[in-house]
């Protein structure tokens, strides 16, 4: 019997065997663990938990604990750079460039005053009053290409943005809304369907009172006289001819402002809006009127 025969035979055997597949290969050594723990005198000795100490008792120390030493992670003094950040007001930004885009794509109607409700309605801006978001921060990206005459109301701005808007003959106001009012502005429909009277807007907290009463920032609580002075001053600072508002054909629209207690344009606090009947109910009770006008 020569080696040739052996080869032939083994080849024939191989041919008769099934093909190698995932179904007929053996597991890697050590890949399977017996799910059962050994018992008996020596069968289950330490069960892989080691001898003595927290390893055996499986009562591991918490991470970073150094058995009574001053732990490393506490040894250095800690400077709380972001202390209280989760309590601070946030103003999710939208840029002038984006506002221009909204206008160009007909998502914003510039023949009416623009406020946070109309910007949210455009569908390209969202914010969450329950996450300490207090409205819009209008940023200066796109100041150079901005070319729309608008009456806009935002919650936070910077000087170049004011200049860009006023250069085009528009007006800007910064106004504070409390979170509940912002909820209403974000989704007026669900509020109207809840069948409640429109509440009053609350006054700003003490730490931003300066911002919302300053004419430089066009605060909604600032003196209009001072605001017109500041408009002129800003035009001189940035070197542009300030368009005269009084000569504008949209003068009435540009002069429209909300009352400090008002939330929606055209709707006063105390009114009940019924969307089903398409009617407005106004209170007549003296006490109610007095409460909603205070």
């Amino acid at each position: 019997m020569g080696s040739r025969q052996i080869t032939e035979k083994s080849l024939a055997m191989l041919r008769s065997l099934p093909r190698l597949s995932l179904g007929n290969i053996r597991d890697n050594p050590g890949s399977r663990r017996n799910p059962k723990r050994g018992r008996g005198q020596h069968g289950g000795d330490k069960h892989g938990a080691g001898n003595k100490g927290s390893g055996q008792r499986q009562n591991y120390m918490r991470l970073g604990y150094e058995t009574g030493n001053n732990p490393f992670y506490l040894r250095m003094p800690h400077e709380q750079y972001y202390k209280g950040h989760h309590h601070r007001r946030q103003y999710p930004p939208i840029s002038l460039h984006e506002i221009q885009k909204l206008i160009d794509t007909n998502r914003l109607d510039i023949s009416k005053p623009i406020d946070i409700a109309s910007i949210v309605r455009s569908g390209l801006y969202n914010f969450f009053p329950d996450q300490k978001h207090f409205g819009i921060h209008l940023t200066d990206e796109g100041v150079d290409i901005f070319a729309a005459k608008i009456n806009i109301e935002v919650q936070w701005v910077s000087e170049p943005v004011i200049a860009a808007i006023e250069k085009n003959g528009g007006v800007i106001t910064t106004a504070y809304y409390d979170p509940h009012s912002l909820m209403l502005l974000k989704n007026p429909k669900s509020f109207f369907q809840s069948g409640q009277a429109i509440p009053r807007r609350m006054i700003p907290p003490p730490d931003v009172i300066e911002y919302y009463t300053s004419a430089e920032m066009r605060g909604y609580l600032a003196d209009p006289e001072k605001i017109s002075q500041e408009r002129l001053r800003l035009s001189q600072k940035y070197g542009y001819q300030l368009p005269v508002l009084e000569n504008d054909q949209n003068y009435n629209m540009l002069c429209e402002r909300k009352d400090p207690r008002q939330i929606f344009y055209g709707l006063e606090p105390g009114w009940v809006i019924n969307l089903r009947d398409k009617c407005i109910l106004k209170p007549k009770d003296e006490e109610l009127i007095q409460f909603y006008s205070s």
Partner: protein
Amino acid sequence: MNICVRTRFIRSNLVSNLCRLSTTPEIEQNEQVVLIDDTEDVQAKEAEIEQKRNKSRLTPAHYNIIHDKRPYEEPKCLAHLTVKYSRKMYGKYGVASGVNPSLCWPSKQEIQERKEFESVAFPYTIKEMMETVQKRRQEEKLKIDQREMEVAAKFAKLDQWKKELNDKINKKAAEVQSAKQKKERLVEEVRRHFGFTLDPRDARFQEMLAKREKEQKKLEKQERMQAKEKAMIAKLQQKNVEISDKSSQ
């Protein structure tokens, strides 16, 4: 659960209330004269047909919701007795819900509670807050101004102080230098006296040094006395001159 049961308001002469409360009652009343045969028989038949047509298998509540009607006519659970639910029904289904719209406004007690809450939550008026901020700004400015004035006053004196300090340092250095020289001179003299270099720690040297020092001190004292005498004499002479001058006059 805040349940405030005010069932007696619900559906109580609704239409009159609505007319009273709304200044713009946009309830259109189409006055079309259409003759409808509404005898009981026909109505019952129609109802039966409608019922048979409804093959949706929806619960009545769901059927109502789908057809934009109030799901329940009578309350089914405690929550349906609350003011909040009634308001919601009015908000969603309008006059057809049969809720008295006067429920939409807060009651007198709620107004009082709201006022109380606001007096606590907003203790300061806008004017008061503005004044506080202004005051704080002024104080900050005053503090900065004061500090700047202080620095300016000190800066004006800086040159003088520098000069004084330098003089003091120079004087001290000169004193130290002169004392050192004096000592060296003494040591040199002692050395010359012996005629050879002697260890300064030697007893003889020390003795000689002490002697020399004593002599030096004596000399200095003498000099001082002489200077004093001279000054005295000069003073006396001046006095004499003055007296003589006075007498000559």
